[in-house]
Structure formats: structure tokens, C-alpha cells
């Protein structure tokens, strides 16, 4: 997927001190795969360049606004291996910069004029914030289960994937209810897979991008793989898990074989989710024109990239 230029210097006012440099820092090192997903959708659905850019910019603005707020809430010192905005600039600037991105989203979409797109985007932002809020209540909850985390991730992570799938059709003014329900379900499943794949990186599983290890655990948050790993733990084992500072300590606590087996079992569980996602992706055929059906093949390849982290 090709890289997209998400914003240029004219998108934000030049007279606001530090704002542009803050955004430069934020956007410059991101993978931008949500905007790439929009590009993939746009290419298959033959969206025009203006629509594609608006949608790609919208999703990246929303995502990065959530990152600015997220880092402050979690007190994370790093974002994409660089000092987080709230530390480099100030917490106040981080909050305002996030809010400003969300405001720009509404300004841009209002100019475009598709009311349904504005409404849906507002709903997604609302879902995202609900997810953030509820996730914060799960910090230091060491008995949290995968099913509970799935509900948080459906709001926090999957909502953006749902948007990426549905927004291009809304921009084309295709409001078929059944189609949108199918896309919504696919977004939910892909969001879960992405989040679960991302959570595995914390435990150095398929961590080719070199993400810092045990970040969630050290912040007091049991992520989806940790919840899966600890599902049959005794209270004493959970107590030990929360004190682990290195992956070797985790593996020693669980046992290397049991750790590897948990990884395989987690993959097997997610293979079922992938099977369901693929079933839904194939069912899109009835809504797509012959020239749009290449989208299905592209969609079928996404779990491999987003869960198994295989480069495409």
C-alpha cells in the first residue's frame, strides 16, 4: 500500500505556536494504515481523489486525536519511539491539539456536505471516547476477561475499522442497510483481530516492528493476550504476573511450553474469528459491481496483515 500525504501546511493555522510542529511529530512516524485502508477501498470503489483524501484525512485525524489523548491518560512517555506530545510540549497542548483535530474533522466533513457521513463520523468519535473511558476503568483490574476486553475494543479500536469500511460507501451515497450491517460486522471482527495482534506484540510474538515489551502490563492493564494467558491463573499467579518487569519473568512464571501453547491456542481462537470475517467478506459479492469485486480479494488479505503482521 502506498504512503499517503495526510495533511499539508495549509490545513492548520500557521499563527498557532507549536501546533504545526506537534502535528509534524505526530504524523511523520505513523504507519497510516487506516488511510491506506481507505485508499484500498477507494481504488476498488472508484472514489474520486477529493473524496479519498477527505476520508483518509478524517480517519487519520480521528485516530491521531485519540493517540494524543490516550498518551496523556496513560501517562505514556513515548509514542512511536519518540517523546509523547504531552511531555514534549505540555499536557494542555496535547489535549487542545487532539480536540482541534476532531474539530477539523467536523469542519472538513461539513464542507463536503454529506449529512449521513457527518452523523456517522460523530457516532464513531462518540464510540471511541466511550471505549477510552471504559478502558480506563479496567486499569489494575487483574481478573478482566477476554469477553470484557472485546467489548472495549469494539468501541475503541474496531469503531475506526467500521468507519473505514462504511464511510466510502456512504460517500458514494450507497446506504443499503444490509450492506452496511455486513461492513459493520466485518469492521468489528477486523478491529478485534488487529487489537489482539497488537496485544501479542507486547509479548514479543511476531514483534517484527520492535515494539516495547510488556507496555500494557507495566501500565497496570491486562491486554487481550495477557487475559487469555491468565484465564486459569490462581490469585497468587496473578499477583506474580503483575509484578513481572521482563518477558523472561513472564515466561518463567507461566513456563515456556505453556507460554508457547497459549500463543498457539490464541491463534487458533483467532483463526475462528478470521473464518467468520472471511465468510462475511465473501458475502459482499451481492452488493458489488463486477468492476468492484476486486475489493473482496483485498479484504480477504487484511487479517494476514493486521493479525499475523505479515507484510503486504
Amino acid at each position, binding site marked *: 500500500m502506498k504512503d499517503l500525504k495526510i495533511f499539508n501546511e495549509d490545513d492548520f493555522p500557521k499563527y498557532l505556536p507549536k501546533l504545526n510542529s506537534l502535528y509534524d511529530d505526530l504524523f511523520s512516524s505513523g504507519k497510516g494504515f487506516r488511510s491506506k485502508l481507505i485508499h484500498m477501498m477507494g481504488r476498488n470503489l472508484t472514489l474520486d481523489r477529493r473524496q479519498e483524501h477527505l476520508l483518509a484525512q478524517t480517519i487519520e485525524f480521528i485516530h491521531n486525536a485519540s493517540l494524543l489523548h490516550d498518551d496523556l491518560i496513560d501517562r505514556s512517555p513515548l509514542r512511536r519511539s519518540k517523546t509523547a506530545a504531552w511531555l514534549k510540549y505540555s499536557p494542555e497542548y496535547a489535549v487542545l491539539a487532539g480536540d482541534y483535530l476532531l474539530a477539523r474533522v467536523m469542519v472538513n466533513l461539513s464542507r463536503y456536505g454529506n449529512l449521513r457521513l457527518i452523523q456517522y463520523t460523530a457516532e464513531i468519535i462518540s464510540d471511541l471516547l466511550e471505549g477510552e473511558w*471504559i478502558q480506563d476503568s*479496567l486499569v489494575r483490574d487483574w*481478573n478482566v*476477561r477476554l469477553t470484557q476486553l472485546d*467489548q472495549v475494543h469494539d468501541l475503541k479500536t474496531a469503531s475506526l475499522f467500521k468507519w473505514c469500511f462504511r464511510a466510502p460507501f456512504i460517500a458514494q451515497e450507497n446506504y443499503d442497510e*444490509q450492506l452496511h450491517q*455486513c461492513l459493520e*460486522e466485518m469492521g468489528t471482527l477486523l478491529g478485534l483481530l488487529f487489537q489482539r495482534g497488537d496485544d501479542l506484540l507486547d509479548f514479543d510474538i511476531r514483534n517484527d516492528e520492535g515494539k516495547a515489551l510488556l507496555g500494557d502490563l507495566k501500565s497496570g492493564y491486562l491486554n487481550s493476550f495477557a487475559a487469555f494467558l491468565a484465564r486459569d491463573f490462581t490469585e497468587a499467579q496473578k499477583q506474580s504476573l503483575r509484578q513481572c518487569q521482563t518477558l523472561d519473568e513472564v515466561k518463567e512464571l507461566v513456563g515456556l511450553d505453556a507460554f508457547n501453547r497459549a500463543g498457539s491456542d490464541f491463534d487458533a481462537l483467532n483463526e475462528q474469528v478470521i473464518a467468520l470475517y472471511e465468510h462475511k467478506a465473501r458475502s459482499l459479492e451481492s452488493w458489488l459491481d463486477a468492476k468492484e469485486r476486486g475489493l473482496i480479494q483485498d479484504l480477504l488479505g487484511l487479517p494476514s496483515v493486521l493479525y499475523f503482521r505479515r507484510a503486504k
Partner: protein
Amino acid sequence: MSRDFITLTRDDPDFDKYLRGTFSRTERALPVETYHAQTYRERVTFRIVPRDQLDVPHWTVIYFWSCRPELWALTLGPAVAGWLAHRHSLGAWDRWPSWFALIGIFFLQTAGFLYNDVQDHLRGADRLNRRRGSQVIQKGWSSAAEMERWSYVNLALAISFGVPAFLNAPLPLAGVCAGAALSLVIILRGIGTRYGLCDLALIALFGPLLTTGVALASFGQTSWPDVALGITFGATALWVFQVRQFENLFRSKPETFRTFLGRLTFDRARWVVVVEGFLLLAVHPGVGAFLRVPLFFLALLPFASLASILVLNRVYKAASPLSSALVGSSRLGLLSHVSWSLWWGAALGVAWL
């Protein structure tokens, strides 16, 4: 297990056959979990599994779990307590209506739970919350159509046993039945939830209507102690339902009904559950003293109230509706009803003996 899926819309001619499980003699269509915060009613995805790949237990095991044994105390608890409260009349307990009334209530409850399981499946509530119901349909042990037939069989048995008991006091029992019907309408249609009418209907249905109904059917008479006992049980049942609602506050949309609690914010709802729970800890011994249960049983109150205290602790600790402290709290709530029912059964039983 097979990974073949099929997605059907409501307007598909085969939709009903898959949902009810009548589409094939050799396969089951198991509903797939949605993961959504809202339930979708227009499209349902099923996983198709050959029946011979399912580990289906003997029908008696299926029937046992379909009867929802964990919920027996909700109706049988007050019924047995109401029955034992008439210790002066129990000398005539060889009169068959008194037994028939209890058996009839058991079958009526089972018919209700079986039918409710089928309705949950048809409405999609089971695809949203996998812990709901008996799980008999969800595990592929039985189809929805078979469950529905079983509910009718149980209803017929309830009527068979209920009619002879009904003849014991036809006019007053007709009033009780009318009250029960009215309560059900209020609960299922959510009438006056904002003003707590639904909660009052739940108290009546699982409390005074049961205790007075059983007393009338068994002995042809009722009294104020039946009402007091009924209100105590009804309030406990309401609290159990509220705890379940609190546990499912995050996904309250698929609930069949809402109590007053379902309209409150999380923080207020938590305080309501805690305050009501503490009040119940005082109401049970208070009514026990009113009904003159032996003093020894008042000393056993800490054991009877243990499950309630554990629920209160969990609810108090919950940081959000998704907090792990709440997981299983509704089952613990049911256990608290069981322990109160056992306490009342033992106390009134000993008083009678």
C-alpha cells in the same frame, strides 16, 4: 468442528427454519456471537455443524438444565415458605391440592423459562450475551422448535396440576391470576419503569401473589403474614434481577425488561443496589421475628446472608459495568436468594414440626 457459516436475512424464506433448527435432520445451526454492543435483528450468521459432531447429553440432562435449576428458588422458595407458614393447617397436608399447587408452580416456571430461552434465541439476545439462558440451544443440544414444544408440554402439565388446586378457592385465586397477568403485562411492556411500576410488579409476581396464591390453593385461605412473607421474597427477587441488570448495564438493550435501576447512571445504580441489599439484610430477620421463627434460626442469619454480603462487596468494588468484580455477581445474587429460601424453609419447617 465445522467452520461453515451461513448468513440469512429476516426476509429469506429459510430464515425461520435455521433459527428454529428445522432446516435439517442431520445438522444444527448454531448462532454466532456478535461482539457488538447492540443486537442486530435483520441478519443472523450461523455456524453449521453436523449433529454427530456435537456431544449431546441424555435428554434428562438437557431437560434438567432447561429447567434452569439455578432459578428454582425464585418461585419455589416463596411457594414453599408460603406453604410452611400455614403451620396450623399443615395437619391436613395429605390434601392433594396443596401438593398439586407446588408441582403446578414448578411446571409453570419451567414452561416460562423454556419459552423465554426460545424467545431470547429468536430475538438475538443469546448472540449478544453468551451467558444468558440455559445454553441448550446455543450448544446445539436441542433446536429452538424442540424447546418450544417442551415449553408447551410443561404448560399443559402446569394447567393439569393447577386446575384441581385452583378449585380449592376459585374466586380469590382468579384475583391472584388476574394480578399475575397484570404484573406480567407491566413487566414485559415496561409500563411505568420510570416510576418503579415494573419493580413493584416484579415484587408482586415473585412475592405476595405467589405466597397468597399457594396458601389459597393449598388451604383455601390466606392471611397478612403471607403478604409480609411474600413482600420479603419479592423484594429479594427484585434485588436479584437488579443485580443482573447492573452486571449487564453495559449491554442493557437486549434485556427482556428493565427495572427502575436500568434507567439510572452507573454510579447511582451501584448505590441503589448496595442500599437495597443492606435493607434486605434487615428485612428478612424483621419479618422472621414477626412470623415468630425460632430464635435459633435468627442466630443462623450470618450464614443466610453470606451470599448477599459477597454480592454487596462485588457491586461496591465495581469500577465500571465491565469490571471483573461484577462477573458472576448475578449468579451469586441467585445464590443469595437460594440461601434465604433455605433459611426460611428450615425455620418455618422446624416451627411446624
